[in-house]
């Protein structure tokens, strides 16, 4: 049963009761939420996700109210680990951030890279770079143009096969990017604006139904792009060597160091199968045009 098939009221009851079983890509989590105001946004943003009842869950999550006049809430994993208290008003943002946190703190069977990932015909583009580089914005725009969403933040890579597994969860956009994407992707459905997070105001874009449906299909890394946004830049792609591409990915990985030789082997193999470029850009439209050129070029293997 999809979440959209439940009434918001029924969803609310489940969330406050035993919780819902949610599958997102390879992972299953049981999610209980004691804050009724989160029910409607979840109903909207997770509309196309299926409820599941699994005996084994990777993560058991509770978001609960921690009362007092300060109106704070808490994200708890396995009834045991909790993130520090946060203002109740940003709970939806913390749910999304927290689900990713569960993965990169607890799963090291995959190489995990901080990157936005989208795919066309199962060929994936990884957008990686520091906060503010525009990767989620670009990712959202690509998805708006029909690319399949894998993730706005977390590339989940099997180190042996190099398959990238989707999570296909809502895309988190911040500040100006929200309006920019509303303009750029008129059909996009958004969750509420959340003010006062560490990134300022954020809002989440619902993943397209098709991305959610295909979240059991991996993709193969084909392009690695390091976006650099600045209003003063002239838009253009600059090739990046495999060596530097590899180190850039390693720098942006959550568990590269932990996985040691496995990660070294995996990443060196991965960059060998990709075209890697830095994308200087000052406008979304220009950036998209460059990416279109990059990804529809007759595929040439990178220079040896």
């Amino acid at each position, binding site marked *: 049963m999809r979440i959209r098939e439940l009434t918001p009221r029924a969803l609310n009851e489940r969330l406050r009761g035993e919780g819902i079983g949610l599958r997102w890509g390879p992972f299953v989590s049981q999610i209980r939420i004691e804050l009724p105001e989160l029910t409607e946004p979840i109903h909207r943003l997770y509309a196309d996700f299926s409820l599941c009842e699994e005996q084994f869950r990777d993560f058991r999550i509770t978001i609960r109210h921690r009362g007092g006049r300060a109106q704070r809430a808490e994200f708890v994993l396995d009834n045991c680990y909790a993130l520090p208290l946060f203002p109740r008003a940003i709970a939806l943002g913390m749910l999304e951030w927290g689900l990713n946190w569960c993965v990169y703190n607890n799963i090291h069977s995959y190489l995990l890279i901080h990157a936005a990932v989208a795919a066309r015909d199962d060929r994936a583009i990884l957008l990686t770079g520091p906060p503010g580089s525009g990767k989620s914005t670009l990712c959202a725009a690509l998805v708006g143009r029909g690319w399949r969403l894998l993730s706005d933040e977390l590339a989940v890579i099997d180190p042996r096969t190099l398959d990238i597994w989707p999570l296909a969860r809502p895309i988190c956009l911040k500040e100006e990017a929200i309006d920019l994407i509303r303009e750029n992707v008129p059909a996009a459905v958004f969750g509420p604006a959340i003010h006062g997070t560490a990134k300022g105001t954020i809002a989440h874009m619902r993943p397209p139904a098709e991305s959610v449906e295909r979240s059991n299909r991996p993709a193969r890394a084909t392009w690695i792009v390091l976006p650099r946004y600045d209003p003063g830049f002239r838009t253009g792609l600059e090739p990046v060597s495999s060596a530097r591409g590899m180190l850039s990915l390693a720098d942006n990985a959550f568990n590269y*160091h932990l996985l040691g*030789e496995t990660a070294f082997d995996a990443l060196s193999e991965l960059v060998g199968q990709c075209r890697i470029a830095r994308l200087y850009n000052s406008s979304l439209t220009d950036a998209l045009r460059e990416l279109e050129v990059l990804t529809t070029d007759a595929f040439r293997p*990178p220079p040896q």
Partner: protein
Amino acid sequence: MTPHANWRLPAGASLFWRQWDLEETVVFNRGAGSTHLIDAFSAASLRRIAAGPCSFGILVDYLSDLSGADEEQVGGRLGEVLDSLQQLGLAEPVSPCAFAS
């Protein structure tokens, strides 16, 4: 650093190399769990050290033979490179009368 010191890989270091072009080499030190991007000169120095402990003098000779550059130039650059390699845990000096490990 004395010119008579021998340079070698640190105990426990175990190196893996990847090279896609001549200028840049990525080396992984499995002992330290660390990954480094190094230039051609540093890579050549490190490969020689990995092949067996050697003195500064031997390295200079080796590198100037390899590159065709004169020994003074090589010597000047090598000092810095060895310092960096030491910082990165990729090489270390052993003075001739240090403890044997």
